[in-house]
């Protein structure tokens, strides 16, 4: 590993920008992501910034069970994020559809079918600490030594 790569790894580990997109959840996971901002969990002490702007994001948090309103739009949001990038599915909804995945409903889970998902956090809703842990583990798995693997 070159010195430049080492510097990049070190810097990148402390500057993860997060955008979240709600593709049809009940809001429960949504507010647990917001609760990560609270001084108790303090997401910014790990160098993670929640901007909700896909064009400057590294990690996309996907919440919800994929409603028809998001067809094409979610893929567009995903394409707007510059590489290196990773998507994290928060809650049961993007993984399996939770209890919305029944006959007569409009949802089309899992979100894995539509965009590549790097990590999944099950729970209805997961606790803020679990969401934090997932973002941190994605940071180490996806962003470290990225240039070395993608010359």
């Amino acid at each position, binding site marked *: 590993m070159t010195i430049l790569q080492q510097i990049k790894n070190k810097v990148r580990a402390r500057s993860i920008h997060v*955008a979240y*997109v*709600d*593709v*049809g*959840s*009940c*809001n*429960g*996971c*949504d*507010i*647990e992501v*917001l*609760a990560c*901002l*609270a*001084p*108790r969990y303090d997401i910014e002490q790990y160098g993670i910034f929640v*901007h*909700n*702007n*896909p064009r400057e994001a590294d990690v996309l948090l996907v919440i*919800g*069970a994929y*409603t*028809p*309103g*998001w067809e094409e*739009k979610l893929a567009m*949001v995903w394409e707007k994020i510059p590489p290196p990038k990773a998507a994290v599915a928060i809650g049961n909804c993007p993984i399996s559809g*939770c*209890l*919305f995945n*029944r*006959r*007569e*409903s*409009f*949802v089309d889970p899992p979100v894995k079918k539509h965009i590549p998902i790097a990590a999944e956090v099950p729970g*209805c*809703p997961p*606790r803020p600490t679990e969401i934090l842990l997932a973002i941190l583990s994605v940071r180490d798995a996806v962003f470290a030594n990225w240039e070395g693997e993608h010359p």
Partner: protein
Amino acid sequence: MKRTVDVNIPLGPIHPCFKEPARLKCEAKGERIVGAEVELGYMKKGIERIMKGRPWQEVMFLAERVCGICSVIHNMVFIEAMEQISSIPVPPRAAYLRVIANELDRMQSHLLANFSYCYTIEHETLGMYLLDLREQVMDELERLTGARVTCAYMIPGGVRCDMPRHNAEILSGSLDRIERDLRRYSGMFADGPMIALRSRGVGILTKEAAQRAHAVGPTARASGITTDGRLIHPTYRQLGFVPLSRTDCDNYARVMVRFDEIIQSISLIRKCLQDLPKGVIRGGGVCKGGETRYSGEAPRGELTYFIKSDEYGRIVDIQIQTPSIMNIEACCHEMIIGADSIADVTATFVSADPCIACTER
């Protein structure tokens, strides 16, 4: 008539200020907004369609997931509607515990709404204070019900778990702390000159306009309409509940009404803890067939369930009317019109506390 519009500005569906996806299409003339429309349809899951034909045991969990922010009131209204259909009595202790859970939920919802408003007008310090205070309320909710968000605390004929005496003492201790902090923060909001510049006189919703748009909840109470679903609830009447209102009609009033209501909720919980009756928390009962319309006061306004069930307690037909749809209507067609800049549009929209998940279901 042809209208001259300088520029159409779409906001959303992904916007740094919005918690949930909604698209606001504003027509601006210069910086002044002359018209606005909201475009929904990003969250439609079809919960009412899933609910039909299922037993109440399943529907109570679905009802809770209509809205994750105010899940306790959805649970409460659905269960009390089923109790009304089947004429199941509620033990007095359970009725009081329900009020405690509901008021804690209202506190956290209002704190979240006020955090969003402070975050939108870029007063991040106060926003973070409020979010930290919300975590303390969430702790109390978790201690009482066992879960942070979707707790399914109420069941027909009672509640799931009792509150031991030492938990009641911890709760009243934390309420004192929360009230002390909250009075300080609401004082900061009330006296902040920069906050007043962004909030006072912005997003005016007059009483007539609020009546025209059928605004409900804190949005209506900030415009001088004293409407509150808790007035007709038997337990709240025992507690001597009186609704609050303000007559400023602007963003400032809507946020301050929520602050006042949190303090009112604290005093309601204190009163509950003081006269908490002894006895059982579950009376038992069987859900039967019938149909009813039942309303309760959600943090955002009046919430109505229309339920028709068959003799085995299965839901044949269900219709839910959530408060946010009226408030979004009032927001788009009355409050935003005439806003002086685009920055005020997001602030005004957030001050009405729209909840898109329960609007679209």
